[in-house]
């Protein structure tokens, strides 16, 4: 008989008593969860507090002497440019890869192929930078010249074509390889979840495999692909080392992606300048980091919102 207390009248809504061990443990678990929220808030708070001197300083004191806006703007443009190239190249490829792994590859090796694609995500970004500089940039030089010759009338390819290949175009292609596994992983997941009933119904109607995919798989997976592409975009926006290694250094804001004077990106600019920066230079770089943080946060929140909305719907299926 371990319960020794005398019986008492229970109040209408009593709280269950909890042992100290339970209370401490639950508190620690809850505390860890809240701590993570605080870290995220802390990232914003500390960046803001260290960026404030750059916001309040006069234009001449900012590196470049033209004020914070003129300093950050070309970097934002460069960041977006590289990420958009990556996204345009990677998304169709990733969809193709996901379809191949889920519906075309032989069943026995499909899982292994998916794993091989995931390996692309495991390679450190600094190594991508090495490869981009040593291999891809060199191989792409003829492609740069060709673009300049044939498509030179488009501002993006205005030239003069770089002879080293260390351009925004090369950066965009390396970023595309880096975000490929992110987009294809999510696309693979949603394609794999397309209702078997719909797929079999399509096949039973005499559809070819492609028609079945177009009717039953792609409509179902569309929002997943969009969300995956946005997560990939978030990654491409914030990617640092690959860009820092390949681009030789920033210049003004230009849409030209094949010349040596491509703009830098926010992240790579920080990596290149931070180790030597002093005083207000540090604050300026942190301010640009804050801009990057806000952009990626917005993109990621939007992507997660799309994913979660989709999850809500598929729960009803």
């Amino acid at each position, binding site marked *: *008989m*371990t*319960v020794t*207390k*005398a*019986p*008492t009248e*229970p*109040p*209408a809504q*009593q*709280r*269950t*008593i909890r*042992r100290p061990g339970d209370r401490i443990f639950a508190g620690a678990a809850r505390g860890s969860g809240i701590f993570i929220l605080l870290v995220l808030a802390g990232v914003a708070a500390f960046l803001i507090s260290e960026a404030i001197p750059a916001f309040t300083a006069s234009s001449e004191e900012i590196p470049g002497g033209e004020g914070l806006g003129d300093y950050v703007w070309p970097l934002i443009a460069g960041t977006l440019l590289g990420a958009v190239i990556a996204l345009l190249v990677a998304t169709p490829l990733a969809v193709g890869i996901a379809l191949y792994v889920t519906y075309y590859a032989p069943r026995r090796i499909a899982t292994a192929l998916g794993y091989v694609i995931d390996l692309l995500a495991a390679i450190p970004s600094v190594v991508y930078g090495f490869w981009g500089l040593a291999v891809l940039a060199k191989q792409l030089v003829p492609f740069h010249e060709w673009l300049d010759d044939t498509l030179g009338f488009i501002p993006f390819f205005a030239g003069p074509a770089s002879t080293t290949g260390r351009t925004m175009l090369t950066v965009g292609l390396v970023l595309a390889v880096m975000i490929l596994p992110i987009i294809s992983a999510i696309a693979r997941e949603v394609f794999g979840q397309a209702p078997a009933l719909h797929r079999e119904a399509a096949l039973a109607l005499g559809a070819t495999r492609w028609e079945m995919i177009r009717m039953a798989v792609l409509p179902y997976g569309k929002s997943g692909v969009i969300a995956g592409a946005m997560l990939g975009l978030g990654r491409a926006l914030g990617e640092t080392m690959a860009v820092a290694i390949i681009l030789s250094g920033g210049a003004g804001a230009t849409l030209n992606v094949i010349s040596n004077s491509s703009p830098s990106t926010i992240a790579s600019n920080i990596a290149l300048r931070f180790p030597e920066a002093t005083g207000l230079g540090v604050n300026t770089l942190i301010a640009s980091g804050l801009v990057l943080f806000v952009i990626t946060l917005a993109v990621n929140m939007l992507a997660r919102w799309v994913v979660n909305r989709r999850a809500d719907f598929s729960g009803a299926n």
Partner: protein
Amino acid sequence: MAKRIEVSDLNIYYGNFLAVEGVNVSIEPRSITALIGPSGCGKSTFLRSINRMHEVLPGARVEGKVVMDGQDLYGSDVDPVDVRRQIGMVFQRPNPFPTMSIYDNVIAGNRLNNKRMKRAETDELVERSLRGANLWNEVKDRLDRPGSGLSGGQQQRLCIARAIAVEPDVLLMDEPCSALDPISTLAIEDLMTELKERFTIVIVTHNMQQAARVSEQTGFFNLNGVGQPGRLIEFNPTEKIFSNPDEKATEDYISGRFG
């Protein structure tokens, strides 16, 4: 050791949904009480509220009284963990801990609560509990093997051994045979008849023959319709329930004319 349980005006909720309404019943010590009724009528929910297992689900709560030997189990100063140490439970599907050996499964109740015991004592407890669950002869040579390697019926008896090893006063069984074959079922029924010498046993079952075979008292739960709370329609000696029930609904259910 075995104890009497008095339940009065018990309402059981899932969030705002009233699942079981107004149960009044007295469960006799050293006997087997069977609870029968159609699916979804709240008999398992009622069973789980006796040892305060109901409230581990988020939003689940209980109003009313469950008194064991003069003490209200839902009293404000009663720790549900202590209640569960006195009222053991066996579940529908056998659930031995997959990371533990047969030996460790039996003494899990003590081990998990960090109770210090001498090796000789635990050996003795394991043998006593496994003998009590009629499993000793089958597993005595492989006590260090994982419990999940046993057959379904053996696993269920292992779970019973695990439950009686903490020496509770009451044993609740939630359809303990529904996942088992007929021979394992018979073995468990024989075991229950032995265990009632020492424990108060409450069993939920869908199998009316089982209720008739093993129990002294039987309660019949029913609900009026979907979304309505379940109720205890009739509680009487088993013989009376199966031969001459008081309520029309009980008779309909037992003779298969239900619904």
